[in-house]
């Protein structure tokens, strides 16, 4: 089976600055693939190269087995893109946004109306079809952008931070819709800053930083591999604890006022710390993708 996306040694340079540095990954049909990384890691640049917004400097990028430079139009006809910015047409109504967009794909008007009706229902926007785009809430606008990205019945959906700026209700609704699309077998490439979102939706993900891939794998595997199974957060750790951890060579991050220890549920360390070192306050929890992310990309601010 040919991969839907195949990136080989992808490089993107902007006058002197290397945004994407030798990136290789592939996305299989039906896979929900996550592209994670801090701001400026090269995620959006990679996505922009995928839909031809940004020419590849070096390396090979194939989508549906077609070359991105040679067959750009054929590729773009088969992908749906949900951009980070709101690119909805404010001059048009909700339904017109879908119909006009369908025109860009050469979809006949009757077929476009049929699909627009279905998509508006699916995204719970049917009652808003004549509304002005400006009048939509953030969540509704985001759902309309998703609906618009699906108007050409794409074989690949590209989502660039699909839930950024949404309230929890809207975010959960978007997740539900994305999960339903995944169920139907749609191939998806997503970037996000929400680790919970990535952990829930992605079959597989890569974490990139400074244009390079740090890790690649399924979320549960990555968590087990890079953040143990359990996490203990100890506030106001004392020297005795620090010595104990150093002696036993336990994976940890020392943030000064807080010590984060990565263990496994079965480990003795759990009990030892609980009984001997919890002087101030301790939190015991399962490790998450966020732990993996922060361990790999560091805790310093990027901007």
């Amino acid at each position: 089976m040919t991969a839907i996306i195949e990136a080989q040694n992808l490089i993107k340079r902007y006058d002197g600055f290397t945004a994407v540095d030798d990136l290789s990954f592939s996305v299989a049909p039906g896979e929900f693939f996550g592209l994670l990384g801090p701001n400026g890691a090269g995620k959006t640049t990679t996505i922009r190269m995928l839909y031809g917004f940004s020419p590849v400097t070096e390396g090979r990028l194939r989508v549906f087995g077609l070359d991105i430079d040679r067959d750009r139009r054929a590729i773009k006809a088969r992908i749906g893109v949900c951009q980070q910015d709101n690119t909805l047409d404010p001059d048009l109504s909700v339904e017109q946004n879908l119909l006009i967009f369908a025109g860009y794909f050469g979809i006949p008007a009757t077929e476009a109306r049929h699909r627009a009706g279905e998509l508006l229902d699916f995204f719970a926007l049917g009652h808003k079809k004549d509304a002005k785009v400006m009048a939509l809430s953030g969540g509704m606008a985001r759902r309309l952008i998703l609906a618009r990205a699906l108007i050409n019945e794409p074989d690949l959906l590209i989502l660039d931070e699909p839930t950024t700026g949404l309230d929890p209700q809207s975010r959960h609704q978007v997740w539900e819709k994305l999960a339903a699309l995944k169920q139907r077998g749609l191939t998806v490439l997503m970037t996000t800053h929400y680790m919970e979102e990535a952990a829930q939706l992605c079959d597989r993900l890569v974490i990139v930083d400074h244009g390079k891939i740090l890790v690649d794998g399924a979320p549960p595997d990555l968590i087990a591999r890079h953040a143990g199974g359990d996490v203990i957060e100890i506030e106001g750790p004392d020297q005795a604890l620090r010595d104990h951890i150093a002696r036993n060579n336990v994976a940890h991050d020392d943030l000064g006022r807080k010590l984060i220890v990565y263990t496994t549920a079965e480990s003795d360390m759990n009990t030892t710390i609980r009984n001997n070192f919890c002087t101030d306050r301790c939190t015991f929890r399962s490790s998450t993708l966020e732990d993996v992310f922060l361990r790999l990309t560091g805790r310093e601010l990027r901007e």
Partner: protein
Amino acid sequence: MMMAEKISWRFVKVWRRNLVTYQKIWKVNFITPLLEPLLYILAFGLGFSGMVEGVDYAGLQLSYTAFIAPALIATAVMWNAFFETTYASFVRMYYQKTFDGMLATPLTLEEIILAEVVWSATKAFGAAVIMMTVLGLLGFVDFPSGLLILPMAFLGGLAMGSIGMFFTGITPTIDMFNLPIFLFITPMFLFSGTFFPVSNLPAWAQPMALAFPLYHMVELVRCFSLGSSQTHPLVCIGYLLLFAVIFLYLAMRVMRKRLIN
């Protein structure tokens, strides 16, 4: 990819998008070309013509009002097309991110740019229809030859829209359009044989006036509404066509540099 491969009939879909949008606001936009010629004719015809004997133009002895009436159609073509591909296109490109959305579809940037320019020519054409009708009713346009003004308005719109789009491609912020308007559009508006014959200009300035696309637009409208002109209409058509092709090409180049990186 070669330029030719980047352009298909798909551009009509983008043109249609602008038409659909325009249908929502056309009633307001309709009034300007309707009232503007009346105001000018009133101001210049009544207020100004007493101070001017008449104008000798291409072997015709014209009243001042009859001399400027065709130029009003030509300048409307200029303003309509130029404003559309500068301010309006800039808003779509920069603030509304309409082009970004379009670029995620099979459309190419070149098709979007072509559609914007053709749309600006369409608006210029629409303005010319209204103004020609108003000025025709006032007796300033000969018919049926005056009907040839309309395809000329479309051609002139392509030329003005193309150079407007070129400025949009190189202008950092929307306020900076003041510069091409001050340095290019205003002198062109005043010195293209619009309000006085180019022959009144000093000899050194005359060739410069002939380089203005508006000069050729004015000549074409005079030719078809008065039956005579200084420059042969084929020369004017050729010049506008060449101007449109060159600046459309340049506009595509600078827009690609600006948006695809």
